[in-house]
């Protein structure tokens, strides 16, 4: 089994899916092909997790091929304990997004776009996202990173919602493109930073083996922090998030918010490449995290649209993750990674449920909704569960990560830890208050009229299947987090040792 190129297979499957679905002219066939392709990718990612040797703290499934030999750039992929769980999470989210967006061709169909294009774009995005998690060559990583932009732009601007979709797509594209510049320069600085006349070094294992000079580290760290910070997002670079959450099709929002590429980039590249600078600037990381946490949870209070609430709540969550990273300890890193995986489930599941809600009531604005619990109890119950996972109720997947991070933060940044405790209270209010308004509240006439004109039952079978899978994972991880944490442990220990050894 060892010589099967699992990761290349994983990256190739969605691309094959993209090619085939793009060629298909008839909608039903495109749907079947898309489902099969997404299912195969998910299966492949699960195989990788099953074959993964959890005792090994290094990279596994490594594949290398020359790509641009003149620049010493190679196609180098591999996974370790930090990244391996993101593969099935990505594949699962994409499968769910494809199933959820089954018939939502919407306004693009009127514009004459072939039915398969929607799926093809999703598959390109999936391949690029998986590439981000697998890439061990910094230029390959950057290539995958930027390749996510084009499909997102088209998905948002063609299948988005409302008049704001075009501007949301443009804004996202420009902001991310601008963020790509410091990112590229940071990666280049790391590649050329070794000094000497040798060829630039782009592959991560050898970059990690030879630490950079301290001045270069500072430059690399700050550039990468800004570059990844746009995607994380850090406060003041975050306004693309609510506008995307409101404008993008729900499935795409679930992907963008559920997969925290920015935080992953910090864990994989920014901090290990510049360990001295990261240790020196730990207060900056912790401060930015605290700011994002407080800002997000307070701003979520003033949102009336459930999508906006989830967007700002995810800003608060990622702030907590940053705070955990700033501790540079094994348990905090485990907590941060578990929290990132929890987003994929909680935020992804939440946005998917909201897409079901949007289809039924035509709105996700709490001010226009109300009394939904009586009409669609299952939908309401699942949304509640995902929201509770977001606020970290014990028994859901949000709790272990939050506990680990807060305990570590209380030790290393006591003030920030106290702020995190405050944010847990506000965060609970920020979720439950709009939940109450939308699902229990009195509601207004417009939503009722709309729903009467298009009466849909409570969750359809395929929607129920998605919700059940996500809910089961939320509960399983929450009730018994030990195996997942142990899977992360060796790589996390190696990560921390790499920082401390300097």
């Amino acid at each position, binding site marked *: 089994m060892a010589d099967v190129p699992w990761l290349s297979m994983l990256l190739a499957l969605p691309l094959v899916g993209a090619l085939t679905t793009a060629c298909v002219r008839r909608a039903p066939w495109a749907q079947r092909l898309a489902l099969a392709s997404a299912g195969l990718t998910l299966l492949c990612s699960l195989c990788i997790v099953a074959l993964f040797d959890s005792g090994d703290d290094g990279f596994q499934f490594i594949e290398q091929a020359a790509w641009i030999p003149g620049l010493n750039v190679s196609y180098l992929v591999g996974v370790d304990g930090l990244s391996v769980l993101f593969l099935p999470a990505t594949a699962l989210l994409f499968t769910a997004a494809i199933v959820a967006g089954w018939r939502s061709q919407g306004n693009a169909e009127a514009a004459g776009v072939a039915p398969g294009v929607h799926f093809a774009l999703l598959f390109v995005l999936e391949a690029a996202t998986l590439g981000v998690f697998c890439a061990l060559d910094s230029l390959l990583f950057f290539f995958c990173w930027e390749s996510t932009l084009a499909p997102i732009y088209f998905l948002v601007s063609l299948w988005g919602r409302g008049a*704001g979709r075009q*501007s949301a797509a*443009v*804004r996202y594209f*420009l*902001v991310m493109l601008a963020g790509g510049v410091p990112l590229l320069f940071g990666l280049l600085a790391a590649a050329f930073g070794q000094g000497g006349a040798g060829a630039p070094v782009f592959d991560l294992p050898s970059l990690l083996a030879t630490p950079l000079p301290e001045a270069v580290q500072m430059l690399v760290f700050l550039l990468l922090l800004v570059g990844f910070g746009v995607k994380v997002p850090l406060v003041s*670079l*975050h*306004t*693309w998030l609510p*506008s995307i959450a409101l404008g993008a099709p729900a499935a795409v929002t679930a992907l963008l918010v559920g997969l925290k590429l920015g935080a992953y980039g910090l864990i994989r590249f920014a901090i290990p490449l510049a360990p001295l600078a990261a240790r020196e600037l730990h207060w900056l990381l912790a401060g930015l995290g*605290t700011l994002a946490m407080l*800002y997000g949870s*307070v*701003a*979520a*209070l*003033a949102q009336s649209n459930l999508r906006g609430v989830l967007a700002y709540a995810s800003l608060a969550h990622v702030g907590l993750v940053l705070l955990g990273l700033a501790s540079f300890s*094994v*348990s905090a890193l485990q907590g941060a990674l578990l929290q990132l995986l929890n987003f994929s489930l909680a935020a992804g599941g939440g946005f998917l449920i909201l897409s079901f809600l949007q289809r039924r009531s035509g709105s996700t604005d709490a001010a226009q909704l109300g*009394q939904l*619990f*009586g009409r669609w*109890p*299952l939908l309401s*119950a699942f949304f509640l569960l995902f929201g*509770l996972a977001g606020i970290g*109720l*014990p*028994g859901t997947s949000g*709790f272990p990560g939050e*506990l*680990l991070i*807060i*305990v*570590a*933060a*209380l*030790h290393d*940044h*006591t*003030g*920030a*830890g*106290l702020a995190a*405790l405050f944010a*847990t*209270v*506000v965060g*609970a*209010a*920020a979720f*439950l208050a709009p939940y*109450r308004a939308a699902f*229990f*509240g*009195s509601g207004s006439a417009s939503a009722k009229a709309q729903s009467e004109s298009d009466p849909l039952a409570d969750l359809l079978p395929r929607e129920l299947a998605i919700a059940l899978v996500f809910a089961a994972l939320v509960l399983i991880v929450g009730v018994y*987090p*030990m195996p997942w*944490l142990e899977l992360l442990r060796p790589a996390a220990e190696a990560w921390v040792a790499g920082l401390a050894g300097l």
Partner: protein
Amino acid sequence: MNAGEFLPAACAALAATSQAVWLVPLLPLLAAGAIGCRMLLRPQGDAAEPATASLASGSALAALVALIVFDLAAIGGCAPQHVLAGDWLRIGPVPVRLSFLLDAYSLPAATLVTLISTLTLRFSATYLHREAGFHRFHCGLALFLAGMLLIALAGNAVLTFVGWEIAGFSSWLLIGYAWQRPVATGNALLVFLTNRVGDAGFLLAIGLAVWSVGTLEWAWLDGDGTMATVTARLLAVGFVVAALVKSAQVPFTPWIARALEGPTPSSAVFYGSLMVHAGVFLLCRMQELLVQVPDLLALIAIAGLLSALYGTLCALVQSDVKSALVFSTVAQVGLMFLLCGLGQFALAAGWSAAHAGWRAYQFLLAPAFMHLVPHPAPPVPGWLAGRMWLYTATLQRFWIEALAHSLLTRPTLALGRDVRAFDERFIDPLVGAPRVDDHSPSGAADDLIRGHGLAGSALFAFANRLQRWESRLLMSGEDSALVRQLQRIVHYADTVETLLEQPRYLMLMVMATFVVIL
């Protein structure tokens, strides 16, 4: 087999069964899960009710039987004090075990909790017959039982915390039982959030325990006698806040009066008898730690005394049965806190058990009270009615809630609105994005392209500057642009200053200073 052989063998068997104590909280949890799964199929009608009811009360009964066996084992001296059932997770070097304590506090508390819950579940099967939320109610109550059993039996702080939050969440579920009524859901939200404040205290204590004591097991949490008083005080404060909130002691009392919106059986078990005593139980659980910090004990005693007075006074002026009962509960629990503060933990625990039993009975009887009591309720006593200020204060429940509202809730909400406005008016234009609703006056139609945001505007300003510089070579003139710029800056400074004068920003700055200092 004679008695001499039989007893040790039975004892060993009992000890072996005691290892399965993890089953006790798990059973109601599974029942709640099973009822939840049943609700996926949307059961309807009378026929669906018995299965749900028997799932819930069956699990409670099984837990009760198991607990009685453990009680017998403990009385016979066979049960192990500390049962381990594997690791749950690991915080750095400190493992969080699935450990359970079977001692003189936990076993009676767990048995009492299960007994009262079993009876209440039986009662509600009839009481809620043909109610729309029959299944939801049983699910919530089973969840609550699981949480309470975790609190009672848990051997370490994290497991207790899990039970603590599960109990809080199930109280949210049941207060909002009549979800169509805005009052009920609003109260549910308030209660959950107040409880969440206590939970934050609990988390703080957990974090401090990991780093200062290096263990989370209750048995060793009091340290080895070498802990500095400061550390012990910090550690205990978090737990004490959590206990004060859960037991609705001053100054966290208002939530409990709001919590009575749920169906009567749930009010009975949550606020009448079981959950409200969880704080007393927590204090007893950590008494070894508390006795190291005398000043905190004094604080507990004062809080208890104040709550006792508060509860008594407020109970006198209530006009409905449930409110009067709940305030007198607060008063009684306050007295238990007073006892704890005086160091009489065993007495407080015994009192709470007796009180729990009696109060559950009273609450369950409350709906029929008017029926049972022929004469009207006694009027407010003269000494209270005569003092107008005291009477008003009592009626207003000493304005605690209004105070919390204007000091905490309103500023936080206002801050949320400010942050939103900040995003929309400041960061959005700064980052710049072509918005659909962008009708800025400068947007003349003949502009081919237009700069947005900081980067775009800077580029445009640069281009304009270049152009102006070029034209100034040709002609020079009076330029008041600088003056205008200065005026604009002054205007901004004024705005910032007026914002800073508002108390919430002042508070925020103080908090930020604290965060930075710490």
